[in-house]
């Protein structure tokens, strides 16, 4: 499919805390950056999607608080709609708006300041108030239950997961936007502070502040712009059961479904052979092999082995998270759109020091939302 393209993009550096800017100021920065990247002006945008979460922002209808900054009030006000979920879901919604025929262009903006609220309390708020939340469980405790189940089912070890952190924090050394970049040793990861067994400090992504923006355009517009368009060739979003106990946490059928649909749309038969680069949502180290397997790149339980063998390394046959991934910067909601931006930059050849060797003609970006990856969005980008 070559109906809708990414024609402009921008992201902030991801940092532990940005006291110098509020949400709107972050959004204004990436709005200007994405428009400049596209060679468009605010008046050229006829549709806006804002992505945010009320609990993180500490106010209701948080999406509406960035209207002034993203330009949706320009010229008496343009169409604006909102998504509470990952930035990739905003991309999907924006693309659907263009495919409806009513709009030629869409600006998708997303922001999150993880530093300003209490991450544990906020993520506990996603659970039901009768059976789960009274236990005090939150995102990391739930993720730990998933990590243990995945290890037990496929005979994986904590060392297997440690190699993900080593790879991605190492990749982040090339990415000036990353928050945590380091040359880690296996011993350092294994000796890091226990958080929720089997997860240790270096298995976790950081708390981050940041924002990102993408300009989408219909092919009629995209083909007239100076910049090489990055086509959204396939996209799908699927979700599964909410109660943790309803799921086999070692499996992610929603991701399998979303990947199948996105591959079908993009005409992909053999993802490992056809896709050149992957940016996926590794909020915790174990998630990278788990999602990688469900994306159909290798059999179940074999993802960790491929990482150890270097198949997904920066200079491997299929680089996964050459940006450093979410383990190196995790502005919640923003992180999925950041995966899209990183993949699109690689296709354009604009990834700077983190540009992988060899042509990137087809790339996959992935976003999640909800406990233990309850919902997934898979995006296939191409030349």
């Amino acid at each position, binding site marked *: 499919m070559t109906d809708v393209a990414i024609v402009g993009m921008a992201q902030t550096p991801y940092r532990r805390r940005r006291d*110098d800017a509020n949400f709107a100021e972050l959004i204004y920065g990436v709005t200007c950056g994405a428009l400049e990247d596209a060679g468009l002006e605010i008046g050229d945008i006829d549709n806006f999607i804002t992505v945010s979460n009320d609990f993180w922002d500490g106010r209701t209808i948080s999406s509406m608080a960035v209207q002034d900054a993203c330009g949706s009030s320009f010229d008496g006000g343009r169409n604006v709609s909102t998504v509470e979920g990952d930035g990739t879901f905003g991309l999907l919604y924006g693309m659907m708006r263009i495919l409806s025929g009513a709009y030629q262009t869409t600006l998708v903006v997303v922001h999150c300041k993880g530093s300003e609220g209490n991450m544990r309390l906020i993520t506990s708020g996603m659970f039901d108030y009768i059976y789960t939340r009274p236990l005090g469980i939150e995102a990391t405790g739930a993720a730990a*239950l998933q990590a*243990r189940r995945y290890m037990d089912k496929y005979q994986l070890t904590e060392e297997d997961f440690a190699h993900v952190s080593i790879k991605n924090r190492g990749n982040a050394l090339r990415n000036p936007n990353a928050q945590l970049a380091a040359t880690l040793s296996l011993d350092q990861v294994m000796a890091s502070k226990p958080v929720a067994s089997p997860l240790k400090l270096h298995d976790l992504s950081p708390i981050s502040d940041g924002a990102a923006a993408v300009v989408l355009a219909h092919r009629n517009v995209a083909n007239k712009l100076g910049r090489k368009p990055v086509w959204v060739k396939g996209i799908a979003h699927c979700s599964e059961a909410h109660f943790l106990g309803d799921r086999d946490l070692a499996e992610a059928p929603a991701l399998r479904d979303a990947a199948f649909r996105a591959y079908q749309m993009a005409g992909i038969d053999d993802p490992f052979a056809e896709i050149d680069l992957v940016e996926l949502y590794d909020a915790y180290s174990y998630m990278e092999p788990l999602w990688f397997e469900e994306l159909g790149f290798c059999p179940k339980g074999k993802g960790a082995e491929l990482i150890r063998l270097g198949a997904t390394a920066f200079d491997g046959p299929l680089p996964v998270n050459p940006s450093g991934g979410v383990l190196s910067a995790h502005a919640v909601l923003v992180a999925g759109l950041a995966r899209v931006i990183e993949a699109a930059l690689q296709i354009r050849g604009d990834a700077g020091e983190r540009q992988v060797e060899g042509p990137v003609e087809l790339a996959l970006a992935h976003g999640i939302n909800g406990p233990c990856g309850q919902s997934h969005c898979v995006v296939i980008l191409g030349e």
Partner: protein
Amino acid sequence: MSRSAEENIIYEGRIRMPYTWAAGETSSYFLTQLRDHARLWGTRCSACQMIFIPPRKNCPRCVTADTNWVELPSRGVLQTYTVINFSEPLLQPSEPPYIYGIVKLDGADTGLTHFLGEVEPEKLRTGMRVEAVFKKKEERCGRITDLLYFRPEGGSGL
């Protein structure tokens, strides 16, 4: 605008938002049975025969309300667990370390997330048999925490 602030003002706030959530017909039955009899009930879908706990008014798979109550034994198998070591006093029910697990009660098709107790973390194994320990009747108040925790079957491992 080019002038940057001489200092960054940080505005402290706190949202306190009381709610009175209706547990609903299905969970009200579950919670009153837990409170009054220390019994755990699931719902069985008449179409697919799957037994769900927590119970649902409708089967989430078949989306039919043709479901029946099934009493479940208060014992089952540990599917996964984690020992919580981080501290967050605003959220946590007790001082860490403490243990969460997902337990599939015998006969149920889904697992119940809850605490594990009376067990050394090193003795925990996926697949081990566990049983529920309830609060004393006079202390039970119709909350999921009327079930205190699951412990190794046959009594304390300590």
